[in-house]
């Protein structure tokens, strides 16, 4: 096998990995702060992709331009969902924590099905199919943008958490919920902000992915599952873990798709997922949350 092909495979894998990382950052943020696994995460992504699609249909504005607007829409949507549903699940029995968002996912997926039908929709803009070429290696333009965005968003989130007051409130809450409360931090507000922010991040992801993938009501299922794999592999709640996990899963998927069988590439990452849960449930970089996987 020649080296160009191998480099091409690695680069494609890293680009898909960037996409996975981009989707996973919001999920890991929400888990890290609130200890909530949002089983409807993929459906949030799907809503964002549809939002970007419809804005493009009506205004003709590129999804790259409208990404901030989609993020804002998802921010508001996330805040509403927090008030209506998520708020009641914090600290509730496990059945509530799991099945409230499972139900939410069902609702969102089928609202999309009823409103927009099950048709595949694609965005046909010049940049959607653009490919950069150098030295015989092809790089998909939308995937490159998504990957770069993933890194930038992770950096921005780091800066936000490290240097701003709300960021400090989030860190304090993560370290010790009760102590933070005693220091006058409104936990409810921190959670509201975290959930809305996590939703906004998946909003950006949706807008950036809209040109690269077909859009349909159950598009979120596979992306959602992939982001669970990424977040568990990287370590629940770890930003760097989400980046690293995303890139690794992208590589695993692409290489196993090529060397084993394209139909089995998902199976390979599910096997990786199970093995991580079994042998290193804290993931590569995660430490917190270990008590919930029985390690204490």
């Amino acid at each position, binding site marked *: 096998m020649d080296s160009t092909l191998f480099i091409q495979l690695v680069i494609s894998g890293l680009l898909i990995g960037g996409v996975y990382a981009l989707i996973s950052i919001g999920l890991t943020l929400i888990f890290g702060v609130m200890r909530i*696994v949002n089983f409807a995460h993929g459906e949030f992504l799907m809503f964002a992709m549809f939002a970007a699609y419809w804005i493009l249909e009506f205004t003709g504005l590129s999804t790259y331009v409208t990404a901030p607007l989609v993020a804002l829409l998802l921010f508001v949507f996330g805040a509403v969902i927090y008030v209506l*549903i998520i708020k*009641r*699940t914090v600290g*509730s*029995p*496990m*059945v*509530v*924590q*799991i*099945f*409230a968002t*499972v*139900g*939410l*996912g*069902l*609702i*969102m*997926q*089928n*609202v*999309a*099905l*009823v409103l927009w039908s099950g048709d595949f929709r694609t965005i046909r803009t010049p940049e959607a199919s653009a490919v950069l070429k150098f030295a015989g290696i092809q790089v998909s333009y939308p995937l490159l943008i998504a990957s770069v965005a993933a890194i930038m968003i992770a950096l921005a989130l780091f800066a936000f958490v490290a240097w701003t007051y709300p960021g400090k409130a989030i860190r304090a809450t993560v370290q010790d919920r009760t102590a933070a409360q005693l220091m006058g931090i409104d936990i409810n507000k921190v959670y509201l902000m975290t959930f809305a922010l996590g939703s906004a991040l998946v909003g950006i992801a949706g807008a950036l992915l809209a040109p690269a993938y077909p859009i349909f*009501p159950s598009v979120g*299922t596979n992306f959602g*599952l992939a982001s*669970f*794999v990424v977040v*568990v592999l990287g370590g629940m709640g770890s930003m760097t873990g989400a980046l690293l996990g995303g890139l690794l899963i992208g590589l695993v998927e692409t290489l196993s798709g090529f060397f084993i*069988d394209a*139909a*089995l590439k*998902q*199976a390979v990452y*599910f*096997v990786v*997922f*199970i093995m991580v*849960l*079994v042998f290193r*449930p804290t993931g590569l970089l995660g430490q917190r949350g270990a008590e*919930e*996987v*029985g*390690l204490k």
Partner: protein
Amino acid sequence: MKDQVRETTASQAGSARAKNRAGALLRGNWGWIALAALIIVPIVVDHPYYREILALIFLWSAMAGAWNIVGGYAGKFSLGHAAFFGVGAYTSGLLYVRLGVTPWLGMIAGMALAVLLALFIGIVTLRLKGKFFALCTIAFGQLIEIMAIYLRSTTGGSEGLLIPFKPGFWTLTFSSKLVWVYIFCALMLLVYFISRWLERSALGYQLSALREDEDAAEALGVNTLRAKLVSISLSAALTAMGGSLFGQYFLWLEPGFVTSLDLSTQFALFAIIGGMGTAIGPILGATLITPLQIFLRAALGTAASGISMLVYGVLLVVVVLFMPKGISVEVGGWIRKLSSRSNSASVAREGSHVA
């Protein structure tokens, strides 16, 4: 005065005893009345459409009840039970279609395979709790679905596996819907009585101990590993049994349905809405929701197939947030409250009489 009081207490005790006896008689007979209804109703309902609804109610009740054995009693929320359902359906279906083995044997083989898979999952997920267990079972469910699609030459891939229609006892294929209604009804009763037995057995108490606090149960000498493995195996075997029967009823297996995440979610959803950790809850859940889905589909056509799942989702969220113990426990609580109020009211009335 004293005599009068003694007399009233005696008569009160007498009337209470009579009431108890009547209650016991009624309670003892409730089961028989229900059983008679289960036998008679399918005969009376002489219409293929309504018999289909009955068959599905019984099947989904049984599957929700099987999920409940591990989800409700042991508190391990699986989102991968379609894996067991699919293993059961494909094992008997493939043995029958490819090798001509009678589905009765195939069903047993499917149950055995499902138990092996369950033991593997149980051992692998030993340390996982709550959402992590749920995530891991999703992964197993997805793996089974991917394999069912991938092994195209054997399973027929995503187009599915057609099972030939040759009515007969050994082919486990019947042209009469009534037979199927009774088969699924028997499956439901099997799951129900296993659940009732479980509630009173040592295993049942061990499961509820480990559901409430796994470490404490372990400290008290409960063999939590054994309890977990037995419950998940039992649940898997019953689910696989349902899968085999489902395949013989519909004569078509499609990975997108029999091994799907949506199906896994449905099993859990019926049990949770009806009431987890009770024998009757899953039956109630499936009985309430299955007809709803069918009627909605009939009323709105396939174009609005999303509506029924949408209603499922709304029900699930509402029940989980506002009555997390499920409808059966909630409604049971109301009834008990009402009857105790009327009881105390009557006692109070009698008391005032004495004064």
